[in-house]
């Protein structure tokens, strides 16, 4: 699983389930979800539930921080690190 594949998967999840969008251009890989108003705290919980199921990983409460979750790039890096 490449970083690029992870990026594609999480982006698709966010587009379809958080933004209900077709247009891929509405998020860039380095957009901050918080700053762009893409995700609120519930969105984060939904996202975490998704990546836990999709990648069979477990995310601890201490890991719920923007450095891990706040952009497509950060997410891919975080997931890659967890799945090693």
């Amino acid at each position, binding site marked *: 699983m490449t970083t690029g594949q992870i990026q594609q998967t999480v982006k698709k999840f966010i587009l379809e389930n958080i933004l209900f969008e077709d247009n891929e251009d509405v998020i860039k890989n380095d957009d901050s979800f918080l700053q762009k108003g893409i995700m609120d*705290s519930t969105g984060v919980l939904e996202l975490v539930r998704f990546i836990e199921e999709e990648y069979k990983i477990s995310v601890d409460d201490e890991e*719920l921080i923007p450095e891990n979750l706040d952009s497509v790039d950060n997410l891919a890096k975080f997931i890659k690190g967890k799945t090693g």
Partner: protein
Amino acid sequence: MCGITGIFNIYEDRKIPLDTLRGMAAVIRHRGPDGFGFYADKRAGLAHARLSIIDLSGGWQPIHNEDKKVWIIFNGEIFNYIELTEDLIKKGHRFYTKSDTETIVHLYEEYGIDCLKHLNGQFAFAIWDKNKDTFFIARDRAGIRPLFYTLTDGALIFASEIKSLFLDSRVRRELDPHALDQIFTFWMPLPPRTVFKNIHELPAGHFMTVAKGQVKKERYWDPDFTPETHIKTEEEYAGQLRELLIDATRLQLRADVSVGAYLSGGIDSSVITTLIKNFTDNPLRTFSVAFHDKEYDESVYQREMVEYLGTDHSYIKCTYSDIGRVFPDVIWHTETPILRTAPAPLYLLSKLVRESGYKVVLTGEGSDEILAGYDIFKEAKVRRFMQKFPASKIRPLILKRLYPYLDNSPTKALQYSEAFFNADTTAYPEKYYSHVPRWSTTAKIKLFYSDNIKAELKGYQNIDELSSLLRSDYDGFDHLSQAQYLEIKTLLSNYLLSSQGDRMAMGNSVEGRFPFLDHRVMEFCAKIPATLRMKTLTEKYILKESMKGLLPDSIIKRTKQPYRAPDSKSFFHDGKAEDYVEELLSESALKRFGYFDVNKTRRLFEKCRRGLALGFKDNMAFVGLLSTQLMNYYFIEHFQSHISHEIDNVKEQVTEVI
């Protein structure tokens, strides 16, 4: 309690069609199933559907003055009618009934429009004064009883509920995208708008006169949070608040039928039931809603109060499918899209009340607005603190304290909730600071607009209409008072007292009464210093102080849990939608009605169907979209067929007074 409706020809004499009047009364007869009364001449037609509560044999309306030159139809209660009547008799007025309706007629003869200042009650009425050639409609201060109108073809057409207006063929049925835009921001249309184009509500605390072809609308009351010059001690405020609430409760128990009370488990209804028990002779009969889902259920606290007070208690236990099942009926009664399902359990509860032989209940409604009970007031205080002291170490602790009752609390992911509390509020003027997070979250629903609706709303700024509702001295109020005032002007009258209040109770012919909304109580509370309404983060502090020794400590100390009901979960069972939900959110219905983007709505539907919609945002969107579709279905597409059986059944029940 009743339904009123009528037609007034503004400029000239014209025949008032009686069949139209009959139909207008018939569609709101859930408000008054005990019989109908009519009056018509060439200027005015008045119709009344009656729920008998005071003067059971003599109180038939319309009612007139001594020489039959002044006629009234009235929905509501005047709680101080006994005192007013005594005074009017001394002044020489002769009464032919013992009803509070007749009191208003003579009071109007005595004082004209100023009669409103003398009334303690919840009311909407219309008076036709043939002597002065003046038509006069008015609504109570807090907006407890509804009144809608439209001006068309030289006529004022008015009614307790909008559906009644549509029985006059001159009135068009069309949803207003601007009103939808307001609902999808503020939760309700800003008065005088309703969700229908050209249908207006007479706002709370307003009256309207039509005389010599001139239509004039005026505000006669508004909450005033300007501080008193003489500040009393905490003990004085607590003591006086208790005395006022006792008096308001006593007055509101006046009725010629039995009066019950709601018991939610929260402090407000506990206060009202305790006052009934301790300070009146009224036998205490209570009703409550319990939920299968523990996240919403408060029955532990309800049972505690039932045992503490020794009341005769009944309750309904509400399931997800109960809510999904009654939701279409709920929307038929709310007559507006809503964003939460919370009215549905109250509709089921009023059914229980009615089936238990009761038609009047007292509730704790209004306390959160006038005594600062809502989380939104606390949130605003916390946000101001966060922005002022960005480095403070107690920030996480404060956040955790805010929402202990939520499973999917926004404070679970702390850094994200910090972002929420640090949210940029500059998109709206500073004077709306308290409400900006709610409005911003709600406004995410606009994402679902269809291209047509987007085009129609291009350039429209709904916030501009809000400022015209506010007092001119609003900017000078302290922060908490501004927040409370905003809440009273928006959600109280146009959501809680209507969609969740009057319409849900009257849907089953039950009248709600609200001692906290006695205008003397409201006026008194607005003058209590803000620091005593909310002390640090203790909501309704002064109310708790005033009730010390009367309520169990566990009820007083309990953190407030807002009344909520399960939202999108209520419409899907085992991954399958209720039939009407499937139909109304189908591609074809979405396209036909044209309000919402098909692809986005279908994705939301799918997310909810799979049980993945966790947050407020998606749930509000789902309920908002579904209820808008229901509104279109009932009121635009299928109105005639939906009402036809109601009209057919009415003919044999008419009690005419013409």
